[in-house]
């Protein structure tokens, strides 16, 4: 564009390039506040955690491949099992969806130049990294968390689990909650306040609705987990009493608070996947989403109902039957918004003219797995069935269909779908199709036999089993499936790395997508859009007159905002511009603040409370340093 563009356009672009330039090199990555660079940092970091969690899973599957296997001992198995769950949920899916996809895509989809709070965004990444390193450092001293990702008391109390294992778990999750909360807060305010002029709620992409529902669920769910972990640490470290009946506590308190967080958490995990599905389907079906407002409301409703169903994880704990019936009914209610979405996806593909390229293939796999996992999930709402299958592999099968089949498949499709946008190159379609079939077959082989073996009585979390129980063949198939799945995931990684170097260059919009990220160049410039786009429908990239008008605006200098580091703020409902926000420049303080917090958490772990206090003082000083240089907007 810059070569043939008329002089005023060139001048605006040059101004924008200058104003939004960041330091290059490694130092630039440490101090960046660009949502796209932070999104990429999140992406690669969470991929490393994904690989770690995957290796843990493969080790477990190898141990369980045949009866009386002796690959890892029981103690190591407990640590692998716990860390697999903790890693996949807290250090892979949540940061991958909100941190990587949300961060990179939400500002681009709503026509903003960055997140609402760019430095806070960097801080959430660095704190997330610190929390991940904190959690994984436990393996160095062979004291990784070992009481399951749900960490039930009394097993997790000091009396029964005397090492640092559970302290790593509780402190690590409190630490990580800070990062996740800040990220969710940032996404919420970005979606509220930075939408492009004209993007009222009814024109906001469904992906952003899903991210909003996820963020709000995180905002209201995480405090329960944080409080629970604070109670646990106070009891373990300082001798407080919350969970022991002898002093007036109650062990079920842990389970209530944990599941008040962890059931909404299931929807937190799967909602971004819905969002990705609603982005990929219209593009490859060449048709806008059917029942757009219903799907938007269903996304929010899923997050809302998710708060009222936690006790269905506790049907076998001896709650009163009135309580059980209430929670069973609430659990069945979740079917309604979920089904609305499934029908909307299927009908959109049915009405449109679908092209089955890799991203849409993964969405197909996702819908199938989501239906299977949803149907087995509804079975648990029947209280007697739940009580019969509690703590068997049937449960493991169900939730892996949901959190691997339904939550991760769209992520994999999303990686292919937005790969050209992020890199400016096309992935290898044939290899992508191969990777789809490998992961699809692998997932089915790994998780489907778990239903059967669960009904045959195999309990969860066992590190080995005997011959002659009728479980051997199923377990072997599951392990083989696990390795096929790993091969599929490896193929995706190989495709991404190779295409990044050798893929064919693509233009701004290889798939003819409908949302705003496809209107800008691939990869997007640091300022995202030369002109802040004005939006008149939910699929603005398909509104050609509007986009032509954007180019004319660029010539006129309308809504270009190239004089300073700025992005417009708008009103929450109608997205009418309300102010011009000056965005902060790159800053070293987020990484410094995160470093002091990391030090403080290690000191808390080792019970150096006074030193930890000093480290938190340093955090405050760093926060003051952060604010010493503030955006000045010259009113007074």
């Amino acid at each position, binding site marked *: 564009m810059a070569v043939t563009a008329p002089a005023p356009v060139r001048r605006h672009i040059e101004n924008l390039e200058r104003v939004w330039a960041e330091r290059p090199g490694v130092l630039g990555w440490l101090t960046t506040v660009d949502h796209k660079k932070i999104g990429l940092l999140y992406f690669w970091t969470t991929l490393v955690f994904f690989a770690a969690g995957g290796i843990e899973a493969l080790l477990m599957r190898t141990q369980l491949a045949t009866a009386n296997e002796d690959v890892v001992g029981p103690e190591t198995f407990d640590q692998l099992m716990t860390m697999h769950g903790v890693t996949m949920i807290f250090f892979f899916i949540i940061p991958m969806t909100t941190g990587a996809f949300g961060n990179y895509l939400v500002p681009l989809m709503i026509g903003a130049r960055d997140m*609402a*709070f760019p430095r*806070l965004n960097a801080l959430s990444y660095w704190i997330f990294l610190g929390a991940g390193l904190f959690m994984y450092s436990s393996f160095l001293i062979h004291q990784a968390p070992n009481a399951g990702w749900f960490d039930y008391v009394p097993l997790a109390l000091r009396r029964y689990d005397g090492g640092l294992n559970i302290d790593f778990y509780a402190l690590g999750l409190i630490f990580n909650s800070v990062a996740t*909360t800040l990220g969710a*807060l*940032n996404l*919420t*305010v970005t979606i*509220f*306040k*930075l939408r492009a002029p004209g993007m009222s709620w009814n024109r906001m992409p469904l992906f952003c609705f899903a991210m909003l529902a996820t963020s709000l669920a995180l*905002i*209201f769910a*995480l*405090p*329960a987990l*944080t*409080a629970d972990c604070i*109670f646990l640490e*106070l009891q373990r470290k*300082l*001798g*407080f*009493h*919350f969970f*022991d009946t002898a*002093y*007036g*506590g*109650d062990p079920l*308190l842990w389970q*209530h*608070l944990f599941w*008040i967080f962890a059931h909404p958490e299931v929807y937190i995990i799967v909602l971004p996947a819905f969002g990705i599905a609603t982005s990929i389907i219209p593009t490859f079906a060449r048709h806008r989403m059917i029942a757009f407002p219903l799907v938007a409301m269903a996304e929010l409703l899923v997050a809302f109902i998710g708060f009222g169903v936690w006790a269905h994880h506790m049907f076998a704990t001896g709650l009163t039957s009135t309580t059980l019936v209430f929670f069973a009914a609430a659990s069945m209610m979740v079917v309604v918004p979920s089904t609305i979405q499934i029908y909307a996806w299927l009908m959109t593909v049915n009405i449109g003219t679908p092209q089955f390229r890799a991203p849409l293939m993964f969405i197909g796999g996702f819908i199938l797995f989501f239906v299977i996992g949803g149907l087995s999930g509804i079975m648990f709402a029947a209280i007697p069935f739940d009580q019969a299958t509690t703590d068997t592999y049937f449960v493991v099968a169900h939730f892996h269909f949901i959190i691997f089949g339904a939550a991760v498949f769209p992520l994999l499709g999303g990686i292919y779908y937005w790969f050209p946008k992020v890199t400016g190159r096309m992935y290898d379609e044939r290899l992508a199709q191969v990777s789809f079939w490998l992961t699809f077959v692998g997932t089915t082989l790994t998780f489907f036999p778990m239903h059967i073996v669960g009904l045959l009585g195999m309990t969860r979390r066992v590190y080995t089993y005997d011959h002659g129980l009728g479980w051997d063949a199923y377990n072997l198939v599951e392990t083989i499936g696990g390795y096929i799945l790993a091969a599929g995931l490896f193929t995706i990684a190989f495709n991404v790395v190779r295409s990044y170097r050798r893929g064919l260059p693509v233009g701004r919009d290889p798939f003819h997508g409908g949302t705003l990220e496809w209107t800008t160049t691939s990869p997007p410039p640091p300022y995202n859009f030369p002109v802040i786009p004005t939006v008149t429908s939910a699929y603005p990239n398909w509104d050609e007159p509007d986009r032509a008008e954007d180019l004319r605006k660029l010539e006129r*200098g*309308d*809504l*270009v905002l190239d*004089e300073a580091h700025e992005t*417009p*703020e*708008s*009103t*929450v409902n109608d997205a*009418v*511009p*309300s*102010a*011009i*926000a*000056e965005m902060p420049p790159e800053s070293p303080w987020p990484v410094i603040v995160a470093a002091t917090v990391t030090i403080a958490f290690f000191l808390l772990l080792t019970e150096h409370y006074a030193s930890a206090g000093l480290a938190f003082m340093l955090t*405050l000083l760093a926060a*003051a340093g952060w604010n010493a240089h*503030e*955006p*000045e*907007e*010259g*009113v*007074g």
Partner: protein
Amino acid sequence: MTAATLPVRRAYAKGWWGMVVFVATEATLFGTLVGTYLYLRFQNAHWPPAQLAKPPVLTPMLLTAALVSTSIAMHVASRAVSDGRRVRAWRALAVALPVQLVYLVWQLHDFVDLIHVYRPQASAWASVLVTLLGADHAHVVVGVLLTAWFVLRLSTRLTRYRAVGVQATAFYWHAVNVITVVVLVVQVSPYL
């Protein structure tokens, strides 16, 4: 194109919204703590445990009344910055700060006493009460730091960024004051 030529509608800034969302998550944390107190209360026949005296009420009530009254000063400061009146805002903050500080120091002193008298290591009741009060005081510490920061900042200049900061701080204080009243109600609930 600058802000002056844009069709601007008056609305709360993103910084204010950030504080609203932050307060939402903190309020949920307190909801969880109060919920825990009530949950355990109904698991126990004696709450507080029979041999313990009930917690003090008069001093916390008077202190909380003083703290809640600073919401007026914070409101004045918030209105003043949105009208661009730096000195008036500064004065309001300077009135609020000493009251908040006295509240905090007094409460922390009593908090240390309370820990020694009721010993969280001896009962779940004392554990949850100490945690609840500790969390509340921690939020007051943050509020005091915020007020002090803006007393410093507004002594020189008022910018839009700082104005949004003062409005967000005022909102934070209103929320902390409501939370403090709720915590007080929990503290005096054994008398109800």
